[in-house]
């Protein structure tokens, strides 16, 4: 087990290095005059310019530059954002991050709460009318461009029905308590969009897994023992679908973060996605580098943890090698 964990960690580090190199190479495609522009406009001093220029390894080629960046990153120095002139880490781990994480987590909870029961009924009543309609809706949600769904929801719920505001974060000039509720009010449509967009995949996955588990021998045994259908489905079947579920959730999380770039743009939410979009527009190498590494670490850590969890959740799985 320990050997396996060490092996996975080493693979994880290799993957992170690879992702970092690819991102850095892409960023170096951008014209690097942006930094000089910042100095020329008087946003940064000559010393800062020099420090940044060499700190980001702009004087080296792509490979050399990447390792220079890596070296300063290991010392905890991710540089100043070209765009806001503040330390990159302060920019990323800021209230903006809180907003994005909040949207991601809340929509994840709602999505699971909707997808799991629907997926199970769909599988239990296979070939029924309900199953057909659920499957069709899943396929449709699967095929929606997220921004188009967002536009439709705004059209219906904000413009026609007027239930929710169309854009923004909160209404101005309210008491703190009212501002809080105004925030929630503003976040309902974005969260609804995220839930609907990611619902399809989870539902489809739940249905598939439940069907597979339901055909297992121990389910027949449970029925033969005379267990009620409720017990069979929720105690014997559902618990066994949880194992593949853990992995599927792990791969979902990073996707939700990059998806937030499009939706925060549309709903004018000042979250991490919006920041990243602005940063790319301004050729902000340090910020994009840090953000992409953050996403890559999120991916690698959650996938590795999920694989390890596999063994914890299901004692039947033995880790070899």
């Amino acid at each position, binding site marked *: 087990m320990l050997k396996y964990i060490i092996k996975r960690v080493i693979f994880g580090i290799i*993957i992170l290095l690879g992702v970092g190199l690819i991102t850095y190479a892409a960023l170096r495609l951008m014209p690097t005059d942006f930094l000089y522009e910042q100095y020329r406009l008087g946003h940064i001093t000559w010393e800062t310019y020099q420090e940044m220029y060499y700190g980001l390894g702009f004087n080296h080629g792509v490979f050399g530059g990447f390792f220079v960046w890596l070296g300063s990153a290991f010392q905890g120095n991710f540089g100043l954002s070209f765009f806001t002139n503040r330390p990159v880490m302060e920019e990323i781990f800021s209230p903006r991050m809180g907003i994005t994480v909040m949207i991601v987590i809340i929509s994840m909870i709602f999505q699971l709460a909707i997808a799991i029961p629907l997926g199970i009924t769909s599988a239990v009543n296979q070939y029924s009318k309900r199953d057909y309609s659920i499957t069709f809706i899943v396929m*449709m949600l699967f095929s929606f461009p997220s921004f188009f769904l967002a536009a439709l929801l705004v059209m219906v719920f904000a413009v026609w029905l007027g239930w929710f505001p169309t854009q923004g974060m909160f209404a101005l000039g309210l008491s703190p308590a009212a501002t809080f509720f105004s925030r929630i009010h503003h976040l309902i449509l974005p969260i609804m969009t995220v839930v609907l967009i990611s619902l399809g995949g989870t539902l489809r996955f739940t249905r598939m897994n439940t069907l597979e588990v339901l055909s297992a021998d121990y389910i027949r045994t449970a029925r033969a023992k005379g267990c009620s259908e409720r017990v069979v489905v929720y105690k014997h079947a559902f618990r066994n679908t949880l194992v593949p579920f853990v992995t599927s959730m792990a791969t979902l999380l990073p996707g939700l973060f990059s998806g937030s770039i499009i939706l925060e743009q549309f709903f004018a939410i000042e979250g991490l996605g919006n920041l990243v979009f602005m940063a790319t527009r301004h050729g902000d190498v340090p910020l994009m580098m840090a953000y992409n590494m953050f996403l890559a670490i999120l991916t690698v850590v959650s996938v590795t943890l999920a694989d390890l969890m596999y063994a914890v959740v299901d004692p039947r799985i033995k880790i070899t090698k």
Partner: protein
Amino acid sequence: MELTLNQLNNEPEKVEKEEEQQDVVRGLSPGRIVLRRFFKSKLTIGGLVVLATLFLFSFLGPVIFNAPDPTITQTGEFYFQSFWVNIEAVSIRVFQRFPESQYGPIHYGNPSSQNWFGTDSSAFDVFSRLMHGGRISLTIGFVSVFISTTLGLILGALSGLIGKWVDHVIMRLADVFSSVPGLPLLLIIGAALNMLEEELGIGNARIFILMGVMAFLGWAGMARLVRGQILMLREQEFMTAAEAMGFSNTRKIVKHLIPNIMPQIIVSMTLGLGGAMLAEASLSFLGIGVLAPTATWGTMVSAVNSLYHLENYPLWWLPAGLMILASVMSFNFVGDGLRDAMDPRARR
């Protein structure tokens, strides 16, 4: 086990199995059986019909309705032309209007007999944009799917056939590429292309570069699929038999491995087309894919970036969005139908 569409619209399994056996008894060739199964699913046929309609609409539509590309000409009323001007060594794209009528261009035009869906803020006819946009939107997916499939096929085959350290290296590479955050990286490259536009002057060829990059990032899934299939097939009896008969490696690969992997590849290509279309639409929506005056369905939906347009001119973005939705859905239905038809093992 996969969710299959035949479950949706076929009679229960038993009847199906009997029919299948009848097909075999009747002596139909495997190809015919696949075709029969494929056309039995109503949703698959629906998908095909929708796709055919959309393709006809985009490619024949402009000819039938006599609607030339509105970014070049504006039907009847106006004549648009874009060209590059060099001012102090910097190329700038200039749009010039040549008025053909005294009334001037119709910006924000209402739907009329001449402009069925009205005209947009640049006085372009929305209906012609819809048709011309489809030409790019529907075909761009093929580019990236073709590249990523070729890459994935070659690397996956190398990995599965040679094994040993080659397998290790390729699979670790696949791990790296599947962990690269796709959208942020495309954003970076798109932004870089925007900034370098003056030097490169590639115009709308940029979308091909972006789709190429996407394919370059997306081969990992296909490589894993091909590798897994090869590893599985190698253990099958017919491969042992081929070995025993002393067939050459080329013959084993060409005659025995490839035909057995083909169905999986075709299915995942079809399903990939929908994903590639969505990616193109997202990039164009964010303003880094196909750039503004050129019509694609993605750029048309990006009208919703302005709340005023979203509220008051649904005709500008709603039909384009629905067309993206319809075509992605159809690609998915056809892909699922193909899987059901070609891979009886995947069915249930």
